[in-house]
């Protein structure tokens, strides 16, 4: 399903049917899910538009209320000044993105994964997060690339104490998603103090055969400024 298509196009498997068909002067986008959900939209384009179907930042469904992703896992202890790599799962949202005249727009977003939200921090100053509970893996686990992606998280304990970690919070505006045999993200988490940590995405694919997904969250690209998220309410 993932890839770029020239319209009109059609894709179907056991779980989903995607199509953009020509209907007179219009193009009709249709998505039919196996469980019966159907979405239809009309595109007004000359027909030179390109459609990309790929995983997008998983913080949009069922309604956009945040741009943070929180992954909770069984607590792990990391030694003082230690560096360790772990693998976690994250939920996948799939975007159907149309390109025309150098501009892009997400036509549709859907997911095969259940959605859940959470609050990181206090209700007064914390942030709403898209929540996902994952196991911890020492190497990339088997995954359904339409449902779960794999995030390689490098944890660096910069403190002089053992750190107990059970969650990571990542900012959707800096996510770099790649897809190939599985959907992948690379991120780092630096433990700064006993209550604060800093997370950041790494702009690299897991392997050379991975393809970069089209992102729908964009910021001003200022090369010297790194976009990180400071987890100030514990980890």
């Amino acid at each position: 399903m993932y890839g770029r298509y020239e319209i009109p196009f059609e894709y179907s498997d056991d779980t989903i049917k995607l199509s953009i068909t020509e209907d007179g002067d219009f193009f009709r986008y249709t998505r039919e899910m196996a469980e019966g959900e159907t979405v239809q939209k009309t595109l007004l384009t000359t027909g030179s538009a390109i459609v990309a179907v790929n995983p997008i930042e998983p913080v949009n469904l069922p309604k956009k209320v945040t741009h943070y992703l929180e992954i909770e896992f069984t607590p792990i202890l990391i030694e003082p000044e230690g560096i360790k790599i772990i693998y976690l799962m994250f939920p996948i949202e799939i975007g159907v993105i149309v390109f025309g005249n150098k501009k892009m727009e997400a036509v549709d977003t859907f997911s095969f994964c259940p959605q859940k939200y959470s609050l990181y921090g206090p209700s007064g100053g914390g942030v709403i997060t898209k929540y996902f509970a994952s196991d911890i893996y020492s190497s990339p686990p088997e995954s359904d690339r339409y449902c779960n992606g794999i995030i390689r998280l490098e944890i660096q304990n910069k403190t002089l104490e053992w750190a107990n970690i059970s969650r990571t919070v990542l900012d959707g505006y800096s996510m770099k998603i790649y897809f190939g045999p599985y959907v992948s993200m690379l991120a780092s988490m630096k433990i700064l103090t006993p209550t604060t940590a800093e997370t950041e995405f790494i702009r690299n694919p897991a392997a050379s055969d991975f393809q970069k997904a089209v992102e729908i969250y964009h910021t001003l690209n200022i090369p010297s400024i790194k976009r990180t998220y400071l987890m100030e309410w514990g980890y």
Partner: protein
Amino acid sequence: MSDIINTTFIFGSSIFVDPVYAEVTFGDILWFFIILVLAVIIAKIISLNLSRFLKDRVQKNDLNLITKAAYWLIFSIGFLIAIPKLEVDLSGFLVAGGIFGIIIGFAAQSVVSNLISGIFLIFEQPLKIGDNVLIEDTHIIVEDIRIFSTIGKTFEGIYVRIPNEKIFTTTITNYVANTARRFEYDVEIRYQDDAARAIQIIKALIEDEPFCLKNPGPSVFVDELAADGVMIKTRMWAPSEVWWDIRTTMLWKIKCALEEDGMEIPFPQRTLWLNPDGGDNNLQKTIPVRNHDTEVRIHTCKPPHPALEKSHPYPITGYNGPDEADKE
């Protein structure tokens, strides 16, 4: 070339060169207004483009503040450039401004008070555009925070203007200032229903709802053994942005799920124990068996069953109100 000569000729004519008062000519006054109009046009263009550029990048409230600040800054610069054309000595403003300020202070106390309150509101930000707030008894969605007043809309769509002074000095309840908020239901089930099972069903429903937050987690517990049934308190958190949608849908989902499992919301009811052997002086109290065959339940919303009336050892006289005797 001829245009330049014509322009020079027009601005060099006696109308533009002869002083109107002191050394100020009609041309100076014209230049003053031209500069002001240009400043307004430039300010509008810049604030409009700023608004377009920042629309998706900053919050609506901050965007409003930035564009207004940019507009008034450019206008002020234009005014300061234009004012020397009128040969106005700005230092004179200091003396005149002081006296003028005292007069204004007395004459327009409430206006100035609103102005000052508006400035403090902009910096303190107890409410933002789009917030759902209760100001005294007025429940509004904030649409604009202006320098003298705040504009809102009630849920019925009625325009409301509240002076900033009132907002600044009164209690404001902002329902969406915090990221998340809690709401609760009292769900009552019959005594014969399994409360533990009901709690399990409600918790599963909350888990399935994406916007019922994982943390802080929900709280579902038996809160009261009430007159008509077991009261289950159900508390959950949702993002402030969507809490009303969730609050209005979850209760019905809970009701339907409980009913699907065979549980019912109890009607008001009373249990009567009737003593078949003695009068009031010789009551034998027994603990009733929780069995429907031995229990006589009379629903207050239904008339007593005729069969039950026959089995009574003493007659029950119907009472229809204080006028009963008059009817006889």
